[in-house]
């Protein structure tokens, strides 16, 4: 599979990135290089290997259902680009 310019355009849209024509060309090239590199994995025989869903050999890590105090109001909104009336303020959505 080869990455084409349209694929990069779609990826940029999905990631909310604005790319120039030069950047699109550069990303097309570098993404293909990454894919080629990953492609070497297909040479391995994996018929007897269980598909992995996680890199760590761990299961069942839980918290108990106990309430703890989180951030206060001021801390919660500290990084908000805009805040008003105790809420995060965001520009027009649609």
């Amino acid at each position, binding site marked *: 599979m080869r990455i084409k310019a349209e694929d990069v355009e779609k990826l940029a849209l999905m990631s909310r990135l604005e790319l120039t024509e030069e950047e699109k060309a550069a990303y097309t090239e570098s993404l293909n290089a990454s894919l080629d590199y990953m492609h070497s994995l297909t040479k391995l025989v994996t018929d007897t290997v269980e598909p992995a869903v996680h890199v760590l050999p761990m299961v069942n890590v839980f*918290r108990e*259902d106990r309430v703890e105090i989180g951030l206060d109001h001021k801390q*919660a909104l500290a990084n908000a680009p805009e805040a008003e009336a105790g809420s995060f303020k965001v520009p027009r959505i649609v």
Partner: protein
Amino acid sequence: MSYQDKYEMVCGVETHVELATKTKIFCACTTEFGGEQNTHVCPVCLGLPGALPVLNREVVNLAIKAGLALNCEIAEFTKFDRKNYFYPDLSKNYQTSQYDLPICKNGRLEIEINGESKSIGITRAHMEEDAGKLVHSGESITTSDSSYVDYNRAGVPLLEIVSEPDMRTVDEVIAYLQELVQILDYAGVSDCKMEQGSVRFDVNVSLRPLGSRELGTRTEIKNLNSFAAVRRCLEYETERQAKVLNKGEKVIQETRTWDDSQGVTLSLRTKEEAHDYRYFPEADLVPLKIDPEWVERIRATLPELPAAKRERLKELGLSGYEAGVLTSSKAMADYFDRVMQNYADAKVVANWIMGDLSALLKANNRSFEDCPIKPYQLADMLKLIKKGDISGKIAKTVLEEIYTGGKDPAVIVKEKGLVQIRDQDALEKIIAEVLAQNPKSVADYQGGKEKAFGFLVGQVMKATQGKANPELVNKILKEKLQIAY
């Protein structure tokens, strides 16, 4: 003309239900409803860089419980995935959900339609996190220059229950939803407070010509939060699709929104790409292995579910209708059972609960959840009726007294002097007086006017403030009236 003359509806529903945990699914913030904006938040549910989620064990317990209540298979191995999309109510720009290995699948529930039973398939149920809440600066999202985000709800655990497209009429859809919510309520997996948005529905609906087996193009209407909204929305959307098809046009597959004030569905189409959620495994959470012992431990905690309860009530001699009303909420059904522990006459108990007690609660805007009359108090009152201490009519007064004052029925009857007069001598004396005061009615009765008898009974009851034993009054009156006056 209705759509049903030419088309058959095909409908499936996705139900989002908030699970009844104290804390959020991946952090220790409280799930409490209300609260000042952005005060039930932490780095995890705000999606701050570097914060790590840890799964709440109770979420898994409740998901298993819901799955068992819905006759699902519980997965031995399950995991979380990221569902990627941009929307301001989503703090991380992805929702942690489950994709290809949901915790529950292949379930079903039974509904009853016109006395016939029908099975509705449950495709799957999976765990996920709720999003935050948006408040728009203007009238609606499309007319607002800005919106405000409150993340208190972000991370509240949800179970998304996906049905098969098995429903063919609006009534079937409503019956399915009612049964589903009832089961979740009984199982105790959610508080099912519809008015607080604890349960929300997305409906998928399409039409096909009568007799056709192929599926038509469907639309999805998201975020309906009451049975009434689902009904009105489906009634509108089926007619809308029928009009499109009748004109020879095609229904467009799309997501629509229900505008409750206008009573219409509106297209939510945007120029942008269709759904491309690019699901991938959530690397911040390790997978789950659920062994059979865990499932059995949860199964042992499952209470009696609505269908079983209805059957049991019918076996006690109640009608299908009575069993249906009594089990319509878990609180009412539990109340019935508790009264029955002290007064085991199902018909009598059902009559009082469905009749006078329900009316009393309704008049005071309360429910069986916070009924001021304790089940043992109702049972004690029924015992007083059975013993003949009070009449059914006086009992209504007693019931109101227990409701307002909280005292036990025996105390009320004694304090208010409501004990029924069953003393033959005392009643004979009162009746003699009533007859002496109403010579015309006596003459009327003896002259063949049956009606006069009822009047005389009424006078006796009036003279005793309703406390006379009715059978005794009838008997003495008849005897006395036969003696020529």
